[in-house]
């Protein structure tokens, strides 16, 4: 007893000392740390040490940029040096040929690299992620060869006599001055990266890394997020390149080889992918190690190769791993803000629907599927299927295994490209749209096999579902502006409301993977609702639930219905389907064999023959009648 008490006291003391440190915001800690480092190095006065420190800072800056691509977005970029080269050459040529001031060249250097990133990224980022590694590798080599063959830029000799930067009559021409500039750039890079990581973008990236397919299907625009990471990473390298050019004074193509791309990758991987302090440590190791071990210069890459493989095998999280802070759900929200959720949600929902300018007429056709065909090789999974769903109803699709039910959902949500046929939602075709666009049109869904983001907290999962409704821009996220902060707090409040709506508020801070099966289903429903859909598609929501949980689910579905949201669901449990549905469609081998009210379906001869004719299903039907 006493021991327990003491333990608790120690625990509390530890917690408070940690809080003590984290009381200072990240940006304060970064600035203080870098200022101390800078001061120590400059005071030391050794020119060699200062020069090495500038190199470390340059690599750290490159590492931070690549970390956005590799660590945040999970993409392997093996041609990162190309961006560094484009930035360096842009700045160097503008300074030597057009006699621009260094600082004036920076926007163009960043713009050019960003454009190059967008041109390369847009077509290739939609490919398999491993292809990207090779494409970027090729891009890196192409860029290097192109500048080697480019006579205007000095060909293999490169650009010479790049002037020092100057501002307001002061010329930066000492290593100490460069150190100050590079540490400032580094501080900015760290703060931006940290803010991005903790914004909705960061959440989107985590979701995408965990399950790209599910992320897209709940409304996260995965292609855009990848492109954003790739372009931003490229722009950082461009900035670092411009800085590198003026500092070194001479640049030539041999400064931008594949080896450099690999070294920057090592900076990120060694330190810990996704970890900001890790990048600093990685840069220190990559730059300082060869300085210390000068006699082994020939084996430098060999040593790094062994380090790289060893890290992947033994310590894949890196030397200074990224710490996922214990998420604090609803931190800073008032206790009573979640009262009377249904009413709150109803109001919010009506607001959202009104904002989209949709007149909600009960009983009109909301979803219209016409002659839908989905062909998989020789198999017609869905064969000339037509049906309608009216606004405000609960519509069920039933049928034996392999009848094509989930395929219908996948076609509606854009996950599959349908072979033929029309799908109209609210009178507009949704065929050919990307899944996240369809979500923003107002269709939410859950999955047959639950696809929550397992390593995200429950409330973060729901917040990921809010993605399509956020308006904060990337620059706002980077700067962590008041507008962005306000939106984040609103997102928190709303995720709390949806969780309480499905009865899961108590588990908000737990990891999704820790929940029971039924609870995971509930969270998935909350995530689907968070986008304020007009129509939700539930794929076997009752699978794996016990009777009590099923009864609760019926209650939840009725509550969703009461919000004015139309529900389409697939399930095998006949008593559940009969109890909850307004209308039922029966599918067999991709064809529609009947639609109607539960009572009609139970008596339909074709249904009984095709689907309920088998013994086990007859039992189900008997049960349904009993209930």
């Amino acid at each position, binding site marked *: 007893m006493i021991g327990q008490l003491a333990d608790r006291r120690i625990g509390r003391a530890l917690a408070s000392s940690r809080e003590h440190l984290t009381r200072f915001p990240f940006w304060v800690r970064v600035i203080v740390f870098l200022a101390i480092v800078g001061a120590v190095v400059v005071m030391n006065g050794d020119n060699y040490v200062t020069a090495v420190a500038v190199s470390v800072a340059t690599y750290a800056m490159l590492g931070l940029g690549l970390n956005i691509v590799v660590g945040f977005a999970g993409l392997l970029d093996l041609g990162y040096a190309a961006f560094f080269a484009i930035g360096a050459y842009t700045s160097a040529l503008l300074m030597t040929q057009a006699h621009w001031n260094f600082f004036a060249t920076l926007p163009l250097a960043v713009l050019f690299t960003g454009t190059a990133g967008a041109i390369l990224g847009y077509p290739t980022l939609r490919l398999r992620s*491993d292809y990207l590694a*090779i494409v970027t590798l090729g*891009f890196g*080599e192409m860029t290097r060869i192109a500048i080697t063959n480019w006579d205007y830029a000095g060909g293999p000799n490169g650009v010479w006599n790049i002037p020092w930067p100057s501002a307001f009559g002061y010329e930066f021409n000492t290593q100490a001055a460069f150190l100050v500039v590079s540490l400032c750039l580094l501080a900015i890079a760290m703060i931006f990266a940290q803010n991005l990581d903790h914004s909705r973008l960061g959440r989107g990236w985590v979701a995408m890394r965990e399950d790209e397919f599910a992320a897209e299907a709940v409304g996260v625009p995965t292609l855009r997020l990848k492109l954003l990471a790739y372009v931003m990473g490229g722009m950082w390298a461009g900035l670092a390149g411009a800085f590198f050019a003026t500092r070194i004074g001479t640049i030539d193509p041999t400064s931008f080889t594949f080896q450099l791309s*690999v070294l920057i*990758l090592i900076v990120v991987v060694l330190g810990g992918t996704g970890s900001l302090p890790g990048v600093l440590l990685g840069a220190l190791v990559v730059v300082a190690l060869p300085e210390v071990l000068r006699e082994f210069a020939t084996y430098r890459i060999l040593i790094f190769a062994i380090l790289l493989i060893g890290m*992947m095998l033994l310590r894949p999280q890196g030397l200074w791993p990224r710490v996922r802070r214990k998420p604090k759900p609803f931190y800073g929200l008032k206790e009573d803000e979640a009262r009377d959720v249904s009413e709150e949600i109803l109001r919010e929902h009506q607001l959202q629907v009104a904002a989209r300018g949709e007149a909600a007429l009960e009983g009109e056709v909301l979803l219209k599927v016409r002659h839908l065909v989905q062909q998989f090789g020789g198999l017609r999974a869905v064969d000339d299927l037509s049906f309608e769903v009216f606004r405000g109803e609960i519509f069920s699709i039933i049928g034996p295994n392999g009848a094509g039910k989930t395929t219908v959902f996948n076609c509606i949500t854009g996950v599959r490209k349908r072979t033929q046929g029309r799908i109209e939602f609210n009178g507009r075709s949704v065929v050919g749209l990307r899944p996240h666009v369809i979500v923003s049109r107002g269709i939410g869904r859950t999955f047959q096999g639950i696809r929550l983001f397992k390593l995200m907290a429950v409330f973060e999962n729901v917040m990921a579902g809010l993605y399509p409704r956020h308006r904060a821009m990337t620059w706002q996220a980077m700067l962590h502006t008041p507008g962005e902060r306000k939106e984040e707090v609103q997102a928190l409040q709303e995720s709390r409301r949806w969780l309480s709506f499905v009865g899961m508020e108590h588990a908000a801070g737990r990891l999704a993977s820790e929940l029971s099966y039924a609870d995971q289903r509930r969270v998935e429903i909350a995530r689907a609702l968070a986008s304020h859909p007009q129509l939700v598609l539930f794929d076997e929501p009752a699978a794996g639930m016990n009777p009590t949980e099923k009864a609760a689910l019926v209650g939840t579905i009725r509550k969703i219905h009461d919000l004015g949201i139309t529900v389409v669901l697939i399930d095998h449990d006949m008593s559940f389907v009969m109890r909850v549905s307004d209308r039922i469609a029966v599918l067999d081998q991709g064809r529609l064999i009947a639609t109607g009210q539960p009572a009609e379906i139970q008596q339909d001869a074709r249904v009984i023959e095709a689907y309920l004719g088998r013994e086990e299903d007859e039992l189900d039907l008997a049960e349904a009648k009993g209930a």
Partner: protein
Amino acid sequence: MHAFLEYTVTGLTVGSFYALVALGYTIVYGIIRLINFAQGDLSMVGAFLGWTLLVSLGFEHLPIYLAVVAAFVIPMLGTAVINLGILQFAYKPLLRRSLLAILITALGMSLLLQNTVLLIYGPSIDAYPPNLLPTTGFYVGPVHVSYVQTALVAVSLLLMGGLVLFVQGTTIGTAMRALAQDHDAARLMGINVDAIIRVAFVLGAMLAAASGVMLGIYYIQIQFTFGFLLGLRAFTAAVLGGIGNIPGAMAGGFLIGLLEAYTTGYVSGKWEDVIVFAVLIGVLVVKPTGLFGERVAERM
């Protein structure tokens, strides 16, 4: 026209080397969905093993048939052992982990092979015996074709034919094709998945080593760095033909070889790699499944 035909002969010769390396990429990718970055470097290792036999150990003075056979077979076996070691030691523990981790490891392996060869053989260029095969040739119409070119293309066609027979005609080959479609189903059918993966790595390494020795015989000069660009071109060939597609990889290899020869001939040798990569990016943008369709199970 004459120049065009000459370039075509060169292109087909070089293309046959690319085709062999591309097959290695395609087989391994088809089965475990890994871009084995070390594929090109395995070829380089094979070339150095061949050089060691022929020059350092003096095999070049043996009767020509013996010398050539030894210079192919021993490096092929040696490289196969190395690739098995890489699989067992580095890739196997990572197969169930993230794609990023295993790709980075593969990259590390490529660097490790390069730098190990650098450590052993040094950075200088080594030369294959120039007179190993008869240096003369014959004329097909106006076009000169050397015996070396003929022999090398013949050997690679032989190897490719053997591979196709193996994959299409044997139980192991059938198991490989099954594995490329669906790991779990293959396992349930009683296929020893690990063993088949090992077979894929052995085949990939053997083909790469053969192409390395052929490169040595053809170009005479070899250096520890040549595997990198070779690997990139071969990968481009594999993607061009449709990854996982064995005939596609062969066709892709020849196409890339021809493209390179024409570029060098008509434009400039300085731009050949830029054009090869432009093709890679172009193919991926326009037809990511390659010219002949990929044979890889869909992931969702």
